[in-house]
Every structure is written in structure tokens, then in C-alpha cells.
């Protein structure tokens, strides 16, 4: 869409304008001559694959990074943003994906952290005023909750509201939100969208980073697409199609349908879960997975999907029930499950899937050490040969097998987590949100890989909040609600509607 017409300007001067921003890190040009303008009261969508420069731009905006080159204009006047204090003074606030709230303080204290109204006795807080002030701020964003509730009792969506309240209390005029709906349920997303509309009406500008196409079109007034640190284009949602946006983001044509070859007849039963309960809040789970199948496990965030995965893998203690894998009962620690042929690809790959400071090779062979070196003697060169094979097979983008795995992009890190189980020769792959935070190109590669795995006789159990992915990829799916299996959907019944209906709480 490089031939798109220039954007008409709704308001003569942008609230904030960035001109020619560049930021370089050793070996990477994170931002290359990026210009970007935010007008009052607009929702400006920021799109790009992982590594396109969205996070860097966001950090430059909020003063966490200092730009190497470029200029900032606020209401047409030149300003500098070289620290977070500068950004705050200009009314720029960022809601990161990981919140910065203090769990054991209450909502009011979190909103006014460091700016608490002083009490009469020096060193004390005026409790009545802080609660009243917090109440007022919460009212402006329409969040009905007792401000003396401690934050550790709040869910993700509520914590996000507190973050927004905090930003509003600091008179934020520009709110930067990084994938705010990533961990929200559909209902919570609706509430957030309503709040965004309200903030817009008050003249607050919102810079919104998203990986979800539907949101981009539902919310955005304008869209800026970044790729490889460069601004590719700025467009209006009305002027583009999702396919065109995807092409701008990846710079090539990507098949948005997921590749899947459904088998005519599923194979023998590989995993049978009978009446499984665990202290983590799941009860009476019955699941069956056959060879050649991809079975979905859906439901709202918090419905117990990950807990089922962890219980099957032995990561959490089981209180009752039976897990039969490949014809034999299994119970014990993850090392036993792994040895028998179960693989877990956890949701948070950075904290649970990888040793970030170790090499790609170390991470790829870690689950296969016994298989690769039956004598117990480790050989670095042979490990690297195995790793090289997997790097080629999975097309992991890395300079070599000795690269530190923490330096790879999200999609390539995910491939390493999957690769370690390929090396181990696993038969059942349990994926927990396999595509979270992964760009579109890598997503379809990962689905192609899962498809190939099950075609070769393995099986997969896949947790995903992206219902559309479940519908496209899975042979059938279980839907969870409040720690139990609420229903089962066959291939023919598998629609987003049905998943939502089964997963919703009964009113």
C-alpha cells in the first residue's frame, strides 16, 4: 500500500510528533528514521511483527530509551524526551504487558504510589483523602471497585484498569498500550474497548499495539505499520484490507489460512485421562487423545486449561484420577512423563521453557541427553551436530548453534522449545498457547510443524485462546469452564460460537 494517499489531517497540529527517530543497539538498528504523529483523541494502531521496532518505539516515547537521532514536537513546539520524567511531564503514560503494580498495596496506594497525600503527622498518609481521590479517578474510567482492595486479589483485567486509572490520575494525554487484550477474556475486552471510547471522547490519545487484526479494524482511527525498524506506511482502516496489512507487516505474501491435513481415521488411543483432579483447582477431567490428532483444549483464561496440561505432565501433584499413556498408567514427576514420551511446551517460554542465557544447542539437547548419550558421556560436538540438524529442520533463524537463546526472536525461541522435544523423540506434544506473542509468519510455520508431527504418528493437545486457531487446526476440542470439562466439540461442531457458548459462565 505504498501508493496509499497521504493521511488527511483531522486536527491541524498533532499532539505529539516524532520526526526521524533512530535508535541503534550493538549489531541491530532497532529504529531507522521513524516518523510518527499522534493527534488528539485518536486511537493510533501500531502494527508490526516481533522485532519490527514497536517496543523500541514505545520505549523511546516513554523516555526509557534515548533516541540516537530525531526530534519530538508537542503541540507543534519542539521538546526533548530523554527520561521517563520528561515523558511523564508531557502526559505520556505506558501500560506495559507486565504490570508494575505492588501486589500487597491496595488500589488507592498503587494509583498514588510516590504521590500520596500527606497526613497531619509527618511521614503518614492521609488515608481518607487517598481513598476519596482514588474513588474519583476510578469513577472517571467507570471502574466500580472498592479502592481499598489489595491488588493481589485482582484479576489481570482489573489490574489493567488500575494501571489505566494510575495513568489518568497523572493527567496522561497520551496512553500507550502494549497488546492490552492479550490476557483478557472476550467480555473483559469489550469493557476495555468501552473504556477506550470513553477516554477518546475526553480527548485522550491512544497508541495501541496489537497482533489482532479484528481489534485493529474495530478500534483504530489510523494505523502505522513498522517493519525491520522502519515505518512502512500509515493508513486508515477503511482504506485497507487485513490481507494488505499483513503483506505490509511481513513484506511478502503469507497464507493466512493454517495448513492442516486431516486424517481420515484417527489412530490408536495415546493418552487417556480419567477422572483427573488436582489441587490446582481442576476436577474430574476426562480426555482422550489419539495418534494423528490435534485436540484442542479451550475455555476462558483461568478455566484450568494450563492446570490440566501441567497435571498430565506431572508438574503439579494429582489428587485423584488416572492418566494412561501409551497403554500404561503414569504418575510422577515431569522427568518420568518426559521419558515416557510426553512433551510440554509451556505458555511462558522465557520463564518455563528455556534457559535464556544458555546456547541454542544446549537448549535443544537438554531433554534428549540420555537418548543422545546413552553412555552418560556428553560430547559438545555431537550435541551441536544434533542442534544443527534441528536448526535446519525447523528453520530456526540463528547465526549458529552457539548463539545465546535469549537473543532470538519469540517465534524462533518457540521453535527451540519444540525442537528440544523433537530431539527427545516425544509422542504426545502438549502445547500451551503455542502462538502467544509470535508473529504471523512464524505462526503458520509452527502450525505446519504440528501438522507434520501428527501426520507422522504423534499426537497433540493444544491450548489456545485464539479460537480461530483451534477451529482451523484441531480435529476436535474440549471446552473447559471453572476447572471442569464443560463439553466436547467434534470437527463439525467446532465453531467459535460453540466454543464461546460452552466456555461462558452461566448467568
Amino acid at each position, binding site marked *: 500500500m505504498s501508493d496509499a494517499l497521504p493521511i488527511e489531517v483531522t486536527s491541524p497540529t498533532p499532539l505529539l510528533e516524532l520526526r526521524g527517530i533512530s535508535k541503534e543497539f*550493538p*549489531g541491530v538498528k532497532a529504529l531507522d528514521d521513524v516518523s510518527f504523529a499522534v493527534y488528539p483523541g485518536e486511537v493510533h494502531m501500531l502494527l508490526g511483527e516481533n522485532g519490527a521496532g514497536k517496543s523500541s518505539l514505545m520505549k523511546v516515547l516513554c523516555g526509557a530509551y534515548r533516541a540516537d537521532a530525531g526530534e519530538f514536537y508537542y503541540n507543534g513546539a519542539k521538546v526533548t524526551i530523554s527520561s521517563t520524567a520528561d515523558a511523564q511531564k508531557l502526559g505520556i503514560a505506558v501500560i506495559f504487558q507486565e504490570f508494575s503494580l505492588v501486589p500487597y498495596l491496595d488500589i488507592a496506594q498503587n494509583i498514588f504510589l510516590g504521590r500520596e497525600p500527606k497526613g497531619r503527622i509527618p511521614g503518614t498518609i492521609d488515608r481518607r483523602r487517598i481513598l476519596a481521590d482514588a474513588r474519583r479517578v476510578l469513577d472517571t474510567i467507570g471502574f466500580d471497585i472498592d479502592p481499598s482492595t489489595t491488588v493481589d486479589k485482582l484479576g489481570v483485567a482489573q489490574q489493567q484498569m488500575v494501571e489505566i486509572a494510575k495513568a489518568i490520575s497523572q493527567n496522561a494525554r497520551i496512553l500507550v498500550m502494549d497488546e492490552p487484550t492479550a490476557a483478557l477474556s472476550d467480555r473483559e475486552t469489550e469493557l476495555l474497548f468501552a473504556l477506550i471510547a470513553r477516554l477518546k471522547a475526553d480527548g485522550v490519545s491512544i497508541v495501541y499495539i496489537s497482533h489482532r487484526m479484528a481489534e485493529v479494524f474495530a478500534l483504530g482511527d489510523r494505523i502505522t505499520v513498522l517493519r525491520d525498524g522502519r515505518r512502512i506506511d500509515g493508513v486508515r482502516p477503511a482504506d485497507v484490507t487485513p490481507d494488505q496489512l499483513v503483506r505490509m507487516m511481513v513484506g511478502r505474501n503469507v497464507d493466512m489460512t493454517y495448513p492442516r491435513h486431516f486424517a481420515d481415521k484417527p489412530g490408536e488411543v495415546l493418552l487417556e485421562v480419567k477422572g483427573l483432579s488436582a489441587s490446582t483447582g481442576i476436577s474430574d477431567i476426562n480426555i482422550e487423545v489419539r495418534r494423528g490428532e490435534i485436540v484442542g483444549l479451550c475455555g476462558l483464561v483461568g478455566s484450568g486449561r494450563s492446570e490440566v496440561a501441567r497435571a498430565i*505432565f506431572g*508438574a503439579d501433584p494429582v489428587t485423584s484420577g488416572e492418566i494412561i499413556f501409551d497403554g500404561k498408567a503414569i504418575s510422577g*514427576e*515431569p*522427568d518420568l*512423563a*518426559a*521419558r515416557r514420551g510426553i512433551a*510440554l511446551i*509451556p505458555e511462558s517460554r*522465557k*520463564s*518455563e*521453557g*528455556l*534457559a*535464556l*542465557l*544458555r*546456547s541454542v544447542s*544446549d537448549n535443544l*539437547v*537438554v*531433554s534428549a*541427553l*540420555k537418548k543422545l*548419550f546413552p553412555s*552418560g*558421556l*556428553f*560430547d*559438545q560436538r555431537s550435541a551441536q551436530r544434533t542442534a544443527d540438524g534441528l536448526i535446519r529442520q525447523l528453520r530456526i533463524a540463528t*547465526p*549458529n548453534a*552457539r*548463539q*545465546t*537463546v*535469549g*537473543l532470538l526472536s519469540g517465534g524462533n525461541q518457540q521453535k527451540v522449545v519444540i525442537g*528440544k522435544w523433537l530431539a*527427545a523423540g516425544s509422542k504426545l506434544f502438549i502445547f500451551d498457547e503455542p502462538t502467544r506473542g509470535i508473529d504471523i509468519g512464524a505462526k503458520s510455520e509452527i502450525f505446519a510443524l504440528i501438522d507434520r508431527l501428527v501426520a507422522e504418528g504423534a499426537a497433540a493437545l493444544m491450548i489456545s485462546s485464539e479460537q480461530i486457531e483451534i477451529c482451523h487446526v484441531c480435529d476436535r476440542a474440549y471446552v473447559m469452564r471453572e476447572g471442569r470439562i464443560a463439553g466436547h466439540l467434534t470437527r463439525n461442531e467446532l465453531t467459535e460460537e460453540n466454543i464461546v457458548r460452552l466456555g461462558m459462565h452461566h448467568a
Partner: protein
Amino acid sequence: MTDITKDAMMPPRSFLSQDAIQVFYRLLAALLICAVLAVLSDSFLSLGNILNVLRQASLTFFIASGLTLVVLTAGLDLSVGANVALSACIAGTVIHKTGSPALGILTGLACGGLVGLLNGIMVTALRIPSFIATYGMLWVLNGLTYWYMAGETLHGFPAGFRQIGSGYLFGLPIPVYLLLVFLGIGTFFAQRTIWGQEIYAIGANPVAARLSGIPVARRLLLVYAVSGTMAGLASIIFLSRLNSAEADIGESLTLPAIAAVLIGGTSLFGGVGTVFGTFIGALILTLVLNGMNLLSVSANWQPLVTGIIVILAVWLDMKTRRRTQ
């Protein structure tokens, strides 16, 4: 020193691993200290002094090598010194009572290993942080040793037994041979066995290690048992060298062993470091103390210098290590 920093910040180079680079810098530092001491003191380069340095370094190294494995798993064993004392006193008693050095050596190693195993059980089964578990163990062991010895001193051991700590073979002190043997075994274990690899993986990310199918608890038990057994070995060499055992001989051993591990480049956060690095760490520590003796610097300055070296070494590591998160 800024060159080092700059180099390590560069995109990854493929020939040398991070570990190899760190060991290389440490060897350079050790050689530099040697060069300075050779210039400043005539007696530094004498054979007797060099053998003395190696022998001293070996005592620190025995304790520090087992400790390195613990630190690689992001743990700490503060009980090693107290363990040496108890093991030495028990081994000494056995030798006195039975007259058999072999039986005494076995008892000393077993005592050390058993203490280590208990540490491991506290860390894995009871989930007590290793720092606290082994700190408590330090007091328990001290208490046991003082009660057992009741102020007595054991001394006078068979001449054959005394050869272990103070004898020579082909002109080299026997502890130096033991040092080479255990340096080899330790390095082999850490770098060339799958258990070693798993220990690195546990230290780098214990949650991911468990979810990758590594039997984390069993490996930790092993690591603490090895650390205890190495303390048992050190106790035998002390006993043989000093020809006596008292309840308080362990009190000055733990902190230098930790210093050797840290100077050697093993990260207290786990997952990074080498047994060879710890050897160099023990060597640097001994060289500096030896140099201060040769230059007649008051012994009162030694703790201060040790502290500065530890802080400097860790700080340089932090600066040179690539940031991955």
C-alpha cells in the same frame, strides 16, 4: 579493562565459548600477578615458594571444587568448613582407635558425604533455601564437633598417613597431584557428562529444567553430596598435613572457598562457571596472600584485599557478560 567490556558486548563470536573467554582472562590475571610478584620479590620465583603456593591453593581448591557444583545450581553450601572440622575429628578418632589410616580416610569421606546428603535433603525434600539450610547445618556441625571433642586435641598420626598432606613424590607435594586429579575429574564431570550438563541447565533456569524432564531433585542431592564428600577429602588432607585435629579448624575455610568460586567466575545466580575457573580463583587468592607475605605486608590487610578482589572479579563478570533479557 575497557577493551574486555567492549569485546564481550560484541555480537557472538563462534570460536570461543563464554566460559572459555572468562577462564582465559583469569589465567591472564593470574600470570600478571605472577609477573608483578616476580619483579617485586626475589624469592617469589623460587621452587620452594611456587610449590608452597600450589599446595596452599590445593587445600582451598578441594573445598571450592565441590562448592562450585553447588553454586552452578544457584545454591550455596555454607557448611563446608564446619563439615571439614567434624570429618577431620571423626576420621582422626577412627585412626587413633583402629590404627588403620585407610579406615579413617573412608570414615572421613563418608562423614563429609553424609552431611552433604543431609543438606541436599533439606534443599530438595524440605524446600529450604540452600543458603539457610547449610547455614543452620554449619551451627549444627560446629555444635556436634565441640561436644564430641570436648576441648581435646587429637594429634600424632602414623607416618604413612602424614605423607598425604606433607609428602613429596618426584619433587612435587602429594596434594599437588591430588589437585591435578580432582581438577581433571571435576572438569570432566561438569563438561563431559550428561549429569554435568543437567546441573548447568538447573542453575540456568530450575523451572525450565524440571519442565524439560530433568530430575532436578536427584541432581541436587548428588551435587550437595559431592560438595560434602569433597569437604571430607579436604578434612583428610588437613588432618594429615597438620598432624592434629581440633574442633575449630574449619572456621577459616568456608569464606576463602566461596571467594575462590566467585573469583573463578562462577555466578551465584547459577548456570555459569567452570571448575577450572575455580582452580584459577584459588590460585589467584593464594598468590595474592603469598605475595603480601613475601612483601612483608601485615596479615591484617589480607581480608580487605581478598574482599576487593572478589568484588572486582564479580563486577567485571557482570559487565562483560552479555545481557540476554
